[in-house]
């Protein structure tokens, strides 16, 4: 079955001076799947995500995101994606509703479209009473859930989640993953990085990066079989470890 590719990366190279952060990456992401992008710290994940989101230009190689060439029209890509970074990035001095309005507006929605969707969203998150609260006053777990909801508020084709659950308690993490599943079932592709290996096993497919290269890419169960390991954690430790330890 020929699947619809929403991200196509071929021979992506990104160099910073003499340092090669991404060394000939080649992979595809299929529409509607949950794609886990794993790798140790410094493996080059964030660099790759930044290129996919149009925040950075590839040194060479071909990167197509939602049908658009990332080195030609990065601003076009931005219209079609959502992004949530490991650094919490809603405005702390705006209220929940105001943040939703702002991002809705930035993506070209009118207040007429924003208001009913905002109310529905607050309802769904059981956030109705928080609408007029400043983000600053919310606990981290709620902030992260809200940031995710804001990232998909404009119905993007793909949402990039860069370590979305770091520092969040297990219950909120579970709820967060329920949100991810629901998002994927709506047809939005989820591209997620994480350091929690239990989360990695929830993905449809995972790729593991080491020293700027992709060393493994398949469904979690297929990879477990291939490497003969019992858990994704074991698998990760086995293959993601750099050959030579830096520092």
């Amino acid at each position, binding site marked *: 079955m020929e699947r619809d590719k929403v991200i196509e990366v071929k021979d992506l190279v990104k160099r910073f001076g003499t340092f090669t952060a991404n060394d000939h990456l080649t992979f595809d992401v299929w529409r509607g799947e949950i794609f886990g992008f794993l790798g140790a710290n410094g493996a080059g994940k964030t660099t790759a995500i*930044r290129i996919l*989101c*149009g*925040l*950075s*230009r590839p040194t060479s190689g071909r990167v197509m995101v939602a049908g658009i060439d990332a080195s030609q029209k990065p*601003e*076009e890509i*931005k*219209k079609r*994606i959502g*992004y949530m*970074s490991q*650094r*919490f*990035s*809603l*405005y*702390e*001095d*705006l209220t929940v509703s*105001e943040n939703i*309005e*702002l*991002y*809705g*507006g*930035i*993506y*070209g929605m*009118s207040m007429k479209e924003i208001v009913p969707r905002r109310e529905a969203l607050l309802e769904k998150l059981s956030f109705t009473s928080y609408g007029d609260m*400043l983000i600053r006053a919310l606990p981290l777990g709620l902030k992260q859930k809200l940031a995710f909801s804001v990232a998909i508020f404009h119905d993007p084709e793909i949402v990039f989640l860069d370590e979305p659950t770091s520092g969040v308690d297990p219950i909120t993490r579970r709820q967060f993953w329920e949100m991810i599943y629901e998002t994927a079932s709506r047809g939005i592709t989820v591209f997620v990085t994480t350091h929690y290996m239990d989360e990695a096993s929830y993905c449809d497919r995972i790729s593991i990066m080491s020293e700027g290269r992709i060393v493994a890419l398949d469904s979690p169960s297929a990879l477990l079989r291939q490497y003969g390991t019992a858990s994704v954690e074991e698998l990760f430790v086995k293959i993601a470890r750099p050959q030579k330890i830096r520092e």
Partner: protein
Amino acid sequence: MKKLLFLLRKEFRQIRRNRFMIRAIIAVPILQMLIFVPAITFEIKRIDLAVIDNDRSQASRELVSKLTGSSFFVVTATPATVTEAESMLLSGDADIALVIPPDFSRGLAGVTTPRLQVLADAVNASTAQLSWSYITSVIRDFNREVIISTGMIPANMAAIRTGSLPGISVSPRYWYNPKLNYKYYMLPGMLVILITVIGLMMIGFNLVREKESGTIEQINVTPIMKWQLIVSRIILFFIIGLFDLALGLGIGWLAFNIPFEGSLLLFFACAAIFLVAVLGLALFFSTMASTQQQFLFIAFFFVMVFILMSGIFTPTESMPLWAQQFNLVNPVAYLMRINRMVMLKGSGFSEIMRDMAMLTILALSYLSLAIRAYRKRA
């Protein structure tokens, strides 16, 4: 356009919630106007005078009382020796020392040539020159009285009675500031400094704070356009700058009764162009800084250079050629000149047209520099 409105609403909401900013917007103009306008003056009101009177005659006492009779001099000490007076100049206890030699009265009587010595602390050259000219004018007066009383020139000459020796009579009229009120000179300049500092610092901190908190990264992955981001910021601080200008002007009028001869509309129009230049420059600086400290360092340096070179304290015409050429790109220098012309002289559009045109070119250049330097990436 609609996106711009969303961004503007965000900026206004944020500034409204920022107590520190609100306080600064209100307090800075009040403090700056009330403190600096009356404090900064080149007038010399009290010159500390040390008198070494080695003559101790009636004539020497008359000279000293004539000096203290003017409002400029205060005899702070009467040291016995010149060495002592020198050490007072050195320590700053005296600004100027007058040495009256022992044969002063004999000299006045025609026996010898009367001589006086004046020693001035000239660390500040302009103060020294002013003190020198004050003291010599008092001495000249004294001299004339001596000439009359000793009958060297007939006392019935009318011109002498009225206080001037025959010659050309020059009577000054000080135009645009008839009372030579220094506050009138400083206030238009202080208004320029006020909006420079407010505009430049506030917009810079606003932008760099978003870099620090990481919110700008989120904005950068949205399809918002560079100019929309930049314009939304400029509008907010443009309004704040004009508000503070009006506040500062109001204080000047209430507290110092500053005259305003020209057109208010022209005054605010020039300030508006100036603000675009300053805000553009601040945006440009903010692209070079990733923390608020870095921004502060860059901005502080340039603000200081711009202000000191602008002609607020010293006339730009007396500056070396390279400094005058630098002022071609110094927005503060243009508005400094325009404000004084419009406020004090009542100059109209045709008189300030050239400066206005140059300021407009600067504003457009700085703004496009900022837009070019701004990157919607990491």
